[in-house]
């Protein structure tokens, strides 16, 4: 058993870190968050030149064919850089959905351009109840047409195709199709835009059955959790640096235990979060019997811990932490958006309870 990264995984992580530091410094994040969509075509083509837009997809569709562990390492670095725009919605969620659900023909048509960096996509799941439970999806396609509303759809304005979860299947809708209305929702996270999408007799192409959503959704959940780990790590690094340099009472504030212990707890939470995410990624990649539980464990822990790290980081910065100028709130906003996306801690604790308390065969023994 070996729970560390191998050489090629370390290489991927290090080169992603360098890439994001060069191409997506925080000044660029701030510039993009003032734009309409937080999307930048240049940055996007650089992401695809790196092969990131096809990272986990089969080579026959122009992908790189790496695994979920590698995806998670990339997302961690993206989270550290607070990468704005539709990478998560296009590659991670919509891409995995197409990959695991669509026919070969459909994949050639839709997944391949995503891999090549030519197209963008997103997934529309939530309805007005704001629930991530499949049982709360009511939208239904009739005669190949959709009527209704989806909310909290990330990056819909820059997507070429919107993949829609409906009662009777997962459908693909062209974002320029007749009867579609895309309107911005004003969320806390300025680096990843949310939209409402209205359908009025909108033509939709069926990709597959709704049950097929489980795996791509699990992949998206773990990848999002990994992105959150990156944000936590960055928040911790910024905070420790500040605690070493900011002086009060003639001493660096990091000398005061009330401050030092906040930092120690941030470290504990960040490392624990990373363990949970790496394991879930590995378990998904290898179809381990406890993979479903591992995904929920990761997301429930991350949902609470990323907020907690943000809280502590801001507190340690004092008034400076409360300013617009400080980068902490940018991470804090992303953390809140990610906390609820794909189910918050309460949601995943209930899901884990169903897997462990209600199912007689407790999967822990096997884990």
């Amino acid at each position, binding site marked *: *058993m*070996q*729970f560390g990264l191998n050489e090629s995984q370390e290489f991927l992580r290090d080169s992603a870190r360098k890439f994001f530091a060069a191409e997506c410094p925080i000044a660029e994040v701030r510039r993009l968050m003032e734009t309409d969509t937080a999307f930048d075509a240049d940055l996007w083509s650089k992401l695809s030149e790196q092969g990131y837009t096809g990272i986990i997809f089969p080579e026959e569709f122009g992908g790189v064919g790496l695994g979920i562990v590698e995806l998670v390492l990339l997302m961690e670095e993206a989270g550290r850089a607070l990468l704005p725009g539709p990478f998560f919605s296009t590659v991670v969620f919509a891409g995995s959905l197409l990959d695991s659900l669509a026919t070969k023909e459909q994949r050639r048509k839709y997944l391949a351009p995503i891999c090549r960096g030519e197209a963008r996509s997103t997934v529309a799941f939530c309805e007005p109840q704001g629930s991530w439970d499949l049982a709360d999806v009511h939208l239904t396609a009739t005669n190949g047409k959709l009527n209704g509303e989806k909310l909290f759809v990330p990056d819909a304005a820059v997507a070429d195709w919107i993949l829609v979860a409906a009662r009777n299947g997962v459908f693909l809708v062209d974002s320029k199709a007749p009867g579609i209305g895309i309107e911005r929702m004003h969320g806390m996270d300025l680096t990843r835009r949310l939209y409402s999408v209205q359908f009025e007799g909108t033509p939709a192409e069926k990709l597959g059955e709704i049950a097929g959503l489980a795996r791509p959704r699990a992949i998206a959940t773990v990848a999002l959790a990994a992105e959150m780990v990156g944000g936590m790590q960055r928040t911790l690094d910024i905070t420790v640096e500040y605690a070493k340099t900011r002086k009060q009472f003639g001493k660096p504030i990091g000398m005061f*235990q009330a401050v030092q212990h906040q930092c*120690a707890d941030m470290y504990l939470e960040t*490392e624990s979060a990373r363990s949970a995410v790496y394991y879930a990624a590995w378990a998904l990649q*290898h179809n381990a019997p406890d993979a479903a539980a591992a995904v*929920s464990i990761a997301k429930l822990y991350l949902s609470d811990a990323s907020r907690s790290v943000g809280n502590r980081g801001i507190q340690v910065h004092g008034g400076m932490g409360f300013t617009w100028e400080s980068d902490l709130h940018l991470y804090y906003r992303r953390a809140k958006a990610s906390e609820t996306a794909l189910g918050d801690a309460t949601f995943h604790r209930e899901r884990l309870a169903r897997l*462990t308390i209600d199912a007689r065969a407790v999967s822990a023994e096997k*884990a």
Partner: protein
Amino acid sequence: MDLNLTPGEVAFRDEFRAWLEANVPKDWAEWREKPLEESFPYLRAWQRKLQEGGWAAVSWPKEYGGRGATLMQQAIFWEEMARLEAPPMANALGLGLIGPTIIAYGTDAQKKRFIPKILSAQEIWCQGFSEPNAGSDLAALQTEARRDNGYYVVNGQKVWTSYGWVGDWCELVVRTDPTVPKHKGLTVLLVDMKSPGVEVRPLRQMTGESEFNEIFFRDVRVAVENVLGKVNDGWNVAVSTLMHERGAYGARLIPIFKRNINRLIELSRKIQRHGQPAAQDPVLRQKLAQCYAEVEIMRLNQLRAFSRITATGAPGPEGSIQKLFWSELNQRLQQLAQEMLGPYGQLLASDPRAVDQGLWSYGYLRSRGNTIEAGTSEIQRNIIGHFVLGLPRSY
């Protein structure tokens, strides 16, 4: 990253499992709740049996009677022990902390003299570190040892010494040079607890038992051959013992915590709340799931730490994360048990209505000690702050 067991790990597990199934005592349940004083001979006998099978100290090098087991194999060992509800071993500190320190720092003669009897539980060891005025600030300890020809003469007092009442030998940290800064004047002595001038008094703990003791030393003569490591280098020797205490101990606890949370889940299906099983109570479900997740994360943190240590060759201050995590998690787990059991949670082993023979009332009280023993949570946070994150020392 590959979290499957390697063929070597599978072989190790299967071999130990087969041995354990054939040899684990079947009557441990009858002994478990008896006072340690009564069950101690039983635990010694069990350790001897493990030793005869070559399983008492799997982590030790082969030449000292171990199996040179990797950290992963050690984790597997404790998992199997817990799975079959095997009794603990009598010489826990000797095997886990003090033996490895003697192997690292001892002379050949010391290893030959002490190691076999640690393995066979013929000689039980205790750890004489803490003093009334030196707990967290261990290096401030005052027990002194003055050189007198071929001997050190020891005077002073130790406290909170687990296994002191049954200890044959003690890893004792003493001050040999009071004129130098506090970390530089310490030495570790291996002390025969039957020496004239050693007096052990029981200390009653909040659980009611007397697991630890205070020990008084009055002109106790210790031969210079029994200095462990170099004179005045005792701090490094002691820290090596503490690293073992903080680093690998978690691996022993993980399967126990797993068993406890699984047992709570099982109980939640039987206990009634508002006319339905507690397992259906939405609040308790949330708490059980949270606890289940944290126990799993403790396991994953441990495995990651083991992989890191295997790669770098040395346990680092990250052991403090494990210590901090398991001790605070156990307190949350025990509180959850109390919440679920309601008024039954308080019942002691002596009450026939106690759930699981009083395991949960005992566990609740005992868990308060977790964040104090082996370095308090505050000290672990100081260690993380200073040694891991590089923040300036707070004191």
